[in-house]
């Protein structure tokens, strides 16, 4: 029989330390749904998604009961919709409505893929889709959108960056009556992964199989509790994180393979991310504080985060047959109790967050900024993040929420997993407008020439 203390460790992780599977995400290719008639195309999409994902929520719940492990979200990601819009023409928002209907029917809580990949340039359908994002996100509840505007291989499409600054702002404006929640469902990427199970940035890449199951694990609370008992140096801290990440990931691998078996769909990847929630004891910031920082955001935070991010990957990679997605520590401000507190006290600033994104898995995530922030400043924030991603050959992203009609220091509250948080000040003393208005493309860096 398995050792009593091992059993108790697992039970405590689940009952007291918020261990859970964050998401089972079914990736579905919509390439075979493309039709020159947009209404037919929408119908085919709805039929394919509901056919393949009809059982997703039920299977997720069955696994939850049998294994006793909570699975918080069941989600769907689809082929970037701009490709379908390219074939059909017409108003892309129709696709968003079709995706929403499919989400309602299947009972999933998010469906991602209202997306375009424009890292080198716009092709047919891309511009139309990007310009329709504000309406699409205002009209739908569960549809998520992302745009890839740069990559290490191709550089940064600054025309897209300029456009996205305006789109982010407009998205917030159209949902101003709902705490600007539209902008919380829009991610602007550099080096976007094609198999990411996490929202809002999930989409099903064109290189993927027709249908796959990807799993995102969680567990910042488990890591923080394990570190509480560790009094050693940072080498030992890294060891403790590795061991914990291994256990968490093994569980993700088990749930993923079981779900894929029951759904008759191939298993894709486990995303090794530490994803926080606003719940007490489920915070990445608290792990950094457990390492010895008084408050997340103080000097030393970037180093601590680098250690954490690396140890999570090293521990997780052996535990899974296939690792992918974003895989690292997330630092979404409004979704992390420790980050919220640090932002409120003024210890965590947007400039420090930018530095932190150079060493962790994503980027400036879930940050409320003043509503008066001009579009070109949002574009410049996106360009800065994309540059970090491009040069370091890693994924970076921007998900900022312009709080329309509100100023720095006031609060936004999205509710649920998206959380709440203070509006963080942005440098508005000087303008990057001329730089952003130049447009064009920032050429790919030397790092791209690997052949």
């Amino acid at each position, binding site marked *: 029989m398995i050792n*009593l203390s*091992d059993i108790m460790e697992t039970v405590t992780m689940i*009952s007291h330390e918020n261990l859970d599977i964050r998401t089972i995400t079914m990736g579905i290719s919509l390439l075979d749904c493309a039709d020159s008639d947009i209404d037919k195309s929408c119908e085919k999409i709805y039929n394919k998604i509901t056919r393949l994902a009809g059982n997703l929520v039920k299977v997720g719940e069955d696994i939850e*009961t049998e*294994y006793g492990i909570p699975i918080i979200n069941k989600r769907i990601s689809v082929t970037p919709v701009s490709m379908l819009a390219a074939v059909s023409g017409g108003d892309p928002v129709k696709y968003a409505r079709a995706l929403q209907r499919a989400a309602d029917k299947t009972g999933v809580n998010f469906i991602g893929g209202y997306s375009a990949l424009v890292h080198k340039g716009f092709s047919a359908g891309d511009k139309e889709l990007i310009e329709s994002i504000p309406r699409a996100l205002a009209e739908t509840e569960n549809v998520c959108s992302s745009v890839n505007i740069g990559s290490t291989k191709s550089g940064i499409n600054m025309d897209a960056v300029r456009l996205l600054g305006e789109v982010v702002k407009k998205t917030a404006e159209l949902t101003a009556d709902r705490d600007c929640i539209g902008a919380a469902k829009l991610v602007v990427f550099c080096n976007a992964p094609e198999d990411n199970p996490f929202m809002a940035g999930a989409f099903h890449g064109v290189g993927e199989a027709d249908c796959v199951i990807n799993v995102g694990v969680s567990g910042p609370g488990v890591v923080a509790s394990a570190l509480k008992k560790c009094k050693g140096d940072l080498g030992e801290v890294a060891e403790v994180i590795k061991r914990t990440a291994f256990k968490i990931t093994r569980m993700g691998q088990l749930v993923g393979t079981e779900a894929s078996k029951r759904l008759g769909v191939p298993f894709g990847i486990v995303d090794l991310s530490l994803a926080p929630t606003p719940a007490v004891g489920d915070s990445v910031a608290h792990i950094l504080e457990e390492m010895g920082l008084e408050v997340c955001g103080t000097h030393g935070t970037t180093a601590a985060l680098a250690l954490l991010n690396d140890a999570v990957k090293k521990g997780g990679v052996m535990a899974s047959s296939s690792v992918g997605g974003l895989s690292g520590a997330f630092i979404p401000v409004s979704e992390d109790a420790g980050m919220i507190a640090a932002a409120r006290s003024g210890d965590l600033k947007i400039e420090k967050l930018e530095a932190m994104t150079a060493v962790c898995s994503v980027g400036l995530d879930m940050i409320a900024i003043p509503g008066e922030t001009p579009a070109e400043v949002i574009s410049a924030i996106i360009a800065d993040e994309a540059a970090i991603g491009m040069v370091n050959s890693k994924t970076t992203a921007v998900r900022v929420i312009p709080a329309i009609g509100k100023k720095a220091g006031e609060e936004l509250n999205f509710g649920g997993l998206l959380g709440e948080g203070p509006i963080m000040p942005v440098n508005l003393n000087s303008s990057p407008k001329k730089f952003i208005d130049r447009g064009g493309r920032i050429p790919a860096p030397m790092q791209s020439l690997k052949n």
Partner: protein
Amino acid sequence: MKKTVITIIGKDNYGIIAAASAICAENKVNIMDITQSVLGDMFVMVMLADISAATCPFGEFSDKMSAFGKERGLDVRVMHEDIFNAMHRI
């Protein structure tokens, strides 16, 4: 054979194992191994059981066990053995 791990944690009291075993017997769940210890006044019990001949679906059995736990103020969980193997065995 389909094996499950039943854990019971809570304040020590009389008849906990008897009651849990009775629920297993009623549903034809075969107890294969049982370990228990009392730490202070906390009672911790782990049971390994075979549910392949169970007369009710897994979810129902699990609900019955947690209902019993609620009644007695205990934290009772029924979990598939594989989750522990995955986490603690390489």
